[in-house]
């Protein structure tokens, strides 16, 4: 057994080798979805399978996911995710909103990481209207995005503890998250729905108070992060619950279009921030944590390590924030020429893309929101057969799904 704190570290032998590509393609004969119900008219000797309905109101479905689980005793025989309990038409509504107002809808998509959602839309819109955000705006975007990423990972980390039965981590995570939300509130004016990143730049400059808070946060968080890792990953029971559970091999990860930390935990180091740099990421020094195991524990450690990298980036951003304008000159009502653009960001859940189609009017003709968690959910669903009920909860938790994003 390797030291838990070493998994996911970007240094050493675990760093992504060059030959990272999967050997073959993942081509299942049957999709592991859909319930194969137990035969009706069971004879007395045969056991009958129990079909339980996990959700939409269940403590550990992370929102309003519903999973139909077929159980043989404690063992999951099949699982089928049923989504749509939060479908509220963000894509459709965007077609009736002006470009400057779509950000409000995007925030409410993946509600834990609003900055990233707005940024994906702003990037796509900027490509359409051919405007570049000023350098300071780019740095501010990166700064806010990384703060938001830590806040989002903390909302994943806490419930991850709850899923395995530990209550403490959740509340410790909430403590740190409040500090981050304070910073975000100081700059953007809201705790969750920021509408901060606009096409052409950002809404407001950073305030001196926020800067001070960020520095205080940077001083304390490194130690807190070590504690967070220690309290769960250093626990024997937690390791026994996570190691070797829900292994996603590379073929499956690619076949199911997994992105983000889930993909990187399976040994592939695709990261939008490195491979398609946006905002200020081409100027920042950071590394991409990669793990080879592909199990729940690897996903856990990769995310924890990502937080450490985010802290690094926040430090660079706050120290090297360039002078200048925080928004480019863009007209109040945007009327991009007809065309298509795809903008993607690395949200805490993976590649969050916005495919924007314009017909020359002041509202998008079609906006497609690529939900990384939808693809993660499919993998989670495909991993369910054969595990125990308690593992099913852990697997779904470890893929970090947010239902607002899956259903849109």
């Amino acid at each position: 057994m390797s030291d838990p704190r070493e998994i996911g570290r970007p240094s050493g032998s675990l760093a992504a080798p060059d030959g990272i590509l999967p050997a073959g393609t993942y081509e299942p004969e049957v999709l592991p979805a859909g319930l194969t119900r137990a035969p009706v008219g069971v004879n007395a000797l045969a056991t009958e399978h129990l079909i339980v309905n996990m959700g939409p109101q269940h403590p550990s479905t992370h929102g309003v996911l519903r999973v139909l689980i077929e159980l043989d005793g404690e063992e999951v025989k099949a699982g089928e995710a049923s989504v749509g309990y939060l479908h509220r038409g963000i894509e459709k509504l965007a077609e009736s909103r002006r470009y400057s107002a779509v950000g409000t809808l995007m925030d409410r998509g993946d509600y834990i990481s609003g900055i990233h959602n707005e940024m994906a839309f702003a990037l796509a819109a900027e490509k359409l209207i051919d405007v570049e955000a000023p350098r300071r705006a780019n740095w501010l975007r990166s700064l806010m995005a990384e703060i938001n990423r830590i806040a989002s990972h903390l909302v994943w980390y806490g419930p991850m503890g709850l899923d395995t039965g530990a209550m403490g981590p959740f509340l410790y995570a909430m403590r740190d998250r409040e500090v981050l939300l304070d910073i975000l509130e100081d700059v953007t004016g809201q705790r969750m729905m920021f509408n901060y990143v606009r096409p052409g730049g950002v809404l407001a400059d950073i305030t001196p108070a926020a800067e001070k808070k960020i520095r205080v946060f940077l001083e304390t968080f490194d130690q807190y992060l070590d504690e967070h890792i220690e309290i769960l990953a250093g626990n024997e029971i937690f390791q026994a619950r996570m190691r070797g559970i829900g292994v996603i091999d590379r073929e499956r990860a690619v076949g199911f279009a997994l992105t983000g930390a889930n993909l990187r935990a399976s040994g592939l180091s695709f990261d939008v921030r490195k491979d398609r740099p946006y905002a200020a990421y081409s100027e920042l020094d950071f590394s991409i944590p990669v793990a080879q195991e592909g199990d729940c524990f690897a996903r856990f450690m990769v995310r924890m390590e990502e937080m450490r990298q985010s802290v690094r980036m926040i430090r660079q951003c706050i120290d090297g924030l360039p002078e200048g304008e925080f928004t480019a000159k863009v007209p109040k009502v945007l009327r991009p020429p007809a065309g298509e653009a795809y903008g993607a960001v690395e949200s805490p859940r993976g590649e969050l893309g916005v495919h924007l189609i314009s017909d020359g009017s002041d509202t998008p003709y079609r906006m497609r929101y690529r939900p990384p968690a939808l693809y993660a959910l499919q993998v989670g669903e495909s991993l369910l057969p054969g595990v125990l009920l308690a593992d099913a909860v852990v697997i779904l938790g470890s893929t970090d799904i947010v239902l607002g994003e899956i259903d849109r």
Partner: protein
Amino acid sequence: MLPDVTVTRRILDGVGITASVEEVAILGVVCRVSAEQARTALRAFRDSDLAFTFMVDLFGVDTGEAIDVVYHLRSLARDEELFVKAEHAYDSALTSVWKVFPAAHFPERECAELFGLKLADHPNPQRLLTTDGVPPLLRKSVRLRGPEEVRNR
């Protein structure tokens, strides 16, 4: 970032599909195939030297005359991206590509449901997001609620 247009066209020719492949400004290389040939084309792209093994996204667009189903492919080996568009008539069948790209499972269900297409060859051809009786919401012909209805709720 952008795959070579001639190579892309040659891959399609190899499986007997004549399709338009062009480089669109801003977006990238877009390849238009017919609805029937979409699955063959996708399989060809996946197994070709370009190795488009990663389906980033699948979604529909209501162009006013038909539904364009867009497959957004990525080649991790060569770091290239390709958009494949297949035009489907309204209420026609959307042939599933989940055997080629397992990731297409949910997005296909969603696309078929929200644009009023039928699913063919799909392991679980049910609605994904809405309940029975909800119209295909993303079609342009389905209107949003008007201000009157919203105000006098």
